[in-house]
């Protein structure tokens, strides 16, 4: 097991990470005997009707932890359990939003928690087969999850009659091959079907026509890992955590210029000041937080003055950002925001799948404009171009969120750090120390 850098052990708000740090938690034996594992599956299979399970998840108010924050129980209820023919649960383990490592943290610490969540979800929505689409670079998490699945199969928790229940359940793994776009659910489905991962237009939504044309429930790893706890403590109890509209806890990956980077379980509604300055120890000695990305690189940036914004989705929306994937990237005052935005636009340009013109052309255009600005060839013209490209990428002009994400980076960094852009573009200077060191 990798070194634990983040939340673990007993604390009132540790729903997911309560047992993290327990030796051999990744084995079925320890998960079951020490952490009360597979109790929730037993309860689901024998004491609850499928609709009750979905209702319990609805009551919990759990919202998807992958990025969009859609109500999980509502999503489950979109699958017509009685429709004839195969239905699938597809698990999004393609974690690749920059600054996000929480699904890896879960898979490396407690893979059985994910397996248990998957089995419960499959039973609730009427699926017999689940597929975990896991990113190709996650060699260790994939191996650990595969071993957990095999252990559960050997124990009779996966198979033709799990725990003796006459309801076949199976989980298979599918390895991704390095494409950020696969985090987008319909691109992930294309990839699972053996195609280039390009998002589909919707409708039809995956709940109606998903993997291999069949009704499909798509959930993120963390979302499903939360499900056993919800069944164990009850949806109403879970909903007491967090805020009314963003209940519960979530894992925030804090990285960048902080003294204690890590994956922290946080009750939604806590401030980013608590997360960044207390949990993660704040910036290194003598430096100040300049800017942070509150929910992965795609979430519009917030300046230091907004550290008191809270982590719930409503507060973030009011601050013109979003909770996204929970990846909190912190940058201190020795770094240049324009350089950082350039790096992220390179990322979005590289990962654009090429299907929609605004994204394919726009991200690249933005990169070239940043290059001119950063090589002291900029002027007001370049600043205007960036603003236009940013507008062109946003507001539903692309099939998926990748276009918007690049636009948000440009837009939010220009909004909060106009002076740094003007220093570079108009005065051909950078007033931030240490910039050239990490160009």
């Amino acid at each position, binding site marked *: 097991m990798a070194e634990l850098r983040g939340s673990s052990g007993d604390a009132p708000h540790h729903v997911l990470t309560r047992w993290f740090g327990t030796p051999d938690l990744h084995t079925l034996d320890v998960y079951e005997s020490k952490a009360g594992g597979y109790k929730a599956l037993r309860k689901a299979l024998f004491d609850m009707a499928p609709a009750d399970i979905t209702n319990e998840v609805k009551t919990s108010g759990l919202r998807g932890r992958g990025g969009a924050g859609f109500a999980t129980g509502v999503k489950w209820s979109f699958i017509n359990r009685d429709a004839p023919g195969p239905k699938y649960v597809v698990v999004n383990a393609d974690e690749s939003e920059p600054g996000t490592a929480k699904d890896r943290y879960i898979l490396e610490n407690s893979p059985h928690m994910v397996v248990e969540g998957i089995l419960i979800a499959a039973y609730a929505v009427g699926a017999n087969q689940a597929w975990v689409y896991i990113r190709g670079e996650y060699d260790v998490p994939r191996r650990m999850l595969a071993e957990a699945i095999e252990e559960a199969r050997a124990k009779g928790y996966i198979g033709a009659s799990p725990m003796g229940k006459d309801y076949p359940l199976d989980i298979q793994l599918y390895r991704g091959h*390095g494409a950020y776009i696969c985090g987008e659910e319909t691109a992930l489905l294309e990839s699972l079907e053996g195609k280039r991962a390009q998002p589909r237009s919707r409708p039809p939504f995956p709940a109606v026509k998903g993997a291999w044309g069949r009704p499909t429930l798509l959930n993120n790893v963390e979302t499903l890992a939360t499900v056993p706890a919800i069944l164990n403590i009850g949806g109403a109890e879970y909903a007491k955590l967090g805020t009314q509209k963003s209940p519960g806890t979530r894992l925030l990956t804090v*990285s960048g210029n902080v003294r204690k980077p890590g994956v922290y379980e946080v009750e939604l509604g806590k401030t980013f000041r608590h997360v960044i300055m207390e949990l993660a120890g704040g910036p290194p000695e003598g430096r100040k937080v300049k800017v942070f990305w509150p929910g992965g690189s795609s979430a519009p940036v917030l300046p230091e003055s907004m550290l008191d914004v809270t982590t719930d989705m409503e507060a973030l929306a009011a601050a013109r950002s979003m909770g996204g994937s929970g990846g909190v990237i912190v940058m201190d005052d020795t770094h240049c925001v324009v350089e950082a935005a350039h790096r992220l636009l390179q990322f979005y340009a590289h990962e654009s799948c090429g299907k929609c013109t605004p994204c394919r052309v726009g991200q690249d255009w933005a990169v070239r404009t940043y290059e001119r600005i950063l090589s002291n060839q900029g002027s007001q013209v370049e600043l205007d171009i960036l603003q236009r490209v940013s507008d062109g990428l946003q507001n539903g002009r692309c099939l998926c969120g990748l276009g918007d994400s690049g636009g948000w980076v440009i837009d939010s960094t220009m909004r909060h750090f106009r002076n740094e852009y003007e220093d570079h573009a108009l005065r051909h200077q950078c007033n931030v120390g240490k910039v050239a060191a990490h160009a």
Partner: protein
Amino acid sequence: MSALSAHVLEEIKELPARFPQPRSAVMPALDLAQEELGHLTPEAMSEVAEALELDPGYVEGVATFYSLFHLSPVGKHHFYICTNLSCSIKGSGEIVERFKQAAGVGEPDAVSADGLFSYQEVECLGACEFAPMLRLDQRYHYDLTPEKIDALVAESRGLLPIHGEVPAKPAEGLVAKKPRAPRKKKADG
């Protein structure tokens, strides 16, 4: 003579039966091809296409989309160095430069003269709390410093004992192991 050995082609032909639709086998099949050859040659992609009864252009289209498929030769030890924001804030630029010096590699996707090393700068690998980091031989390496890069390169050359845990076994199959009924063969198959 074919690029892929007979047993690999046989294995590839068995893949489609593991999926609800046979096309899903294309990436696991390309994995097997790459495992054997180190990278995907046009001949190998054509043979994969033939084995899966797909159009060669289609298979190549899939292979070129995903960054873990190599279309040109790579070194025996290929370094995937993350240079996305969390790692670049923590100095991944310096890590890349040090690797290039230590391994004798000039640019991304070039192979060192001894055939041992190559690298690519990759996007976020999802281990940001350990930045800067890289992936090498199916393992992640964390909290990188120039000295750690020197040590990794030396270990890869066999000059230093590999410390830490035993490297992961090569990912095998990568999909279902459960035997299922073989797919019906087409008459002309």
